[in-house]
């Protein structure tokens, strides 16, 4: 407890009782005990996994093929260079997804029979691209568009891959946003419209900001998922991290470069995963009113 001058005597708290001191000591001890237990169980778990792996009959071969330092370090710069391309594609695709998804979600939340065709189109779009495996969208866009022959010059596979990514992910994100829009209490819309705001104004200034806050964890989840799906553009031939690894693998017949690429993807997405957790925790803290429960 902080010391308080006698002048503010009536505002000060009574000194801490021995009972409360005892309770705090007890809680502190309990907290330390549970940390110790969880540490111990983690170590035991890790040791068991390690023993099972190392004790397996094929461990020598597996280690030399997948975790070979001889191939690990030489592969790293090439694969890392490829990851730069993944990052660029991701940066552009995220902006595209945000724009398309907001428009789609807005269209789907339009009310009234006049807007039926727009609602229908938006619904058909999201149904189609959420249902179709991303790999197939990639093939259709990546090989189908050039086959149409609109352009004499070859279209960049990176561009096509980005478009495919936007098509698929905007349909996911649009549905998440729509769920958020519908989760905002109708009274908020009433209040906004009562101020004289238009449907669009109410959506943009009142509903969407609240909707996005509600679905931030889901949006971040889609973002992290997108981050690794960027690696699939390698099937079109774009030299990204996975493709770079593949090139080395096909020369050496050692799979360590794939592990390198996998690790780099994990490292790349890790800050965003942590950010998601942090945002979720912060939101929980803000909305929690019930103290201990």
């Amino acid at each position: 407890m902080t010391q308080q001058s006698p002048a503010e005597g009536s505002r000060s708290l009574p000194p801490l009782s021995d009972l409360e001191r005892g309770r705090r000591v007890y809680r502190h001890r309990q907290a330390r005990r549970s940390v110790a237990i969880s540490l111990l169980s983690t170590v035991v778990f890790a040791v068991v996994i390690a023993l099972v792996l190392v004790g397996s009959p094929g461990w020598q071969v597996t280690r030399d093929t997948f975790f070979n330092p001889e191939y690990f370090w030489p592969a790293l710069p090439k694969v890392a260079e490829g990851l730069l391309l993944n990052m660029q594609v991701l940066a552009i695709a995220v902006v595209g997804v945000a724009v398309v998804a907001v428009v789609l979600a807005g269209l789907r939340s339009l009310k009234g029979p006049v807007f039926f065709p727009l609602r229908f189109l938006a619904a058909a779009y999201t149904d189609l691209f959420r249902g179709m495996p991303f790999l197939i969208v990639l093939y259709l866009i990546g090989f189908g568009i050039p086959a149409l022959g609109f352009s004499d010059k070859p279209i960049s596979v990176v561009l096509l891959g980005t478009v495919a990514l936007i098509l698929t992910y905007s349909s996911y994100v649009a549905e998440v946003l729509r769920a958020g829009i519908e989760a905002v209490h109708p009274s908020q819309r009433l209040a906004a419209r009562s101020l004289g705001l238009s449907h669009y104004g109410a959506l943009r200034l009142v509903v969407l900001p609240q909707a996005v806050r509600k679905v931030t964890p889901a949006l971040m989840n889609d973002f992290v998922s997108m981050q690794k799906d960027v690696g699939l553009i390698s099937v079109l031939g774009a030299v990204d991290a996975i493709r770079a690894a593949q090139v080395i693998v096909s020369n050496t017949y050692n799979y360590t470069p794939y592990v390198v690429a996998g690790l780099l993807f994990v490292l790349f997405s890790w800050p965003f995963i942590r950010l998601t957790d942090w945002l979720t925790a912060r939101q929980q803290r803000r909305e929690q009113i019930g103290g201990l429960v």
Partner: protein
Amino acid sequence: MNAPRRSSPPLRSPEQRRGDPATTAPRRSSPPQLSFGQPVLQLRGIVKSFGANHVLRGIDLEVARHEVVALIGASGSGKSTLLKTANLLERIDDGQILLAGDDISDPRVDVDGVRARIGVVFQHYNLFPHLSVLDNVTLGLRKVRRLARADAERRGMTLLERIGLAAQARAYPDRLSGGQQQRVAIARAIAPDPELLLLDEITSALDPQLVGEVLDLVAELKGAGSTILMATHEIGFARRVADRIVFLHGGRICEQGPPGQVLDAPQHPQTQEFLRRVLR
């Protein structure tokens, strides 16, 4: 009080408690090891701060069996926080809480077991919207008291008849008026026959014409012998049902006594000031 101030009496284990058929026992029965006249709730030197905001600065309060105590005071005087600490929804920073003699502020206590012994009614009802009225009332009986569904529903229907809502047993809470919802919330709270009932501003969210039906029900609970600690803004109601009025100010008990004394002849200037403002 004869117990030494810092004593912590032995706790009843959850098994013992589950063993006693609280829902079938007559209402006024008390656990065998308790002497008659032991307070249901004893708060000793309760301190609670939120950061630099000292909400409770040392509260000593006892609620006797079958007693109805009303906490009054301005917003922010600590009424709600005091109720939450009694139900272990907020951890106290100092002091001791005894429920029927058991030190429930002890960190070793079975928190869920303690909460099962206390009924709470909230300002905003907090009914479960995905459950029917009857399921709301019987949830605790079935899942905490482990009663068979048929037994729980029999008791639930008895309670709903008592609050005049038996016809709505299968309806969902959002089909009910605020007053009806709050009565269901009261039925849910008293269903497991708790030793203590905490009412936190239960009429504050109601339309004025709906307040009466809820207050009548509380008066009936008092008649049936419930032990109640409530926070309220309804001075008239506090006068009608409370055995004792406790006026909180600045996180301390400023004045307490029978309604006639505190409300009609307040001694403390803060009480006088508060009553002048709310009764104007």
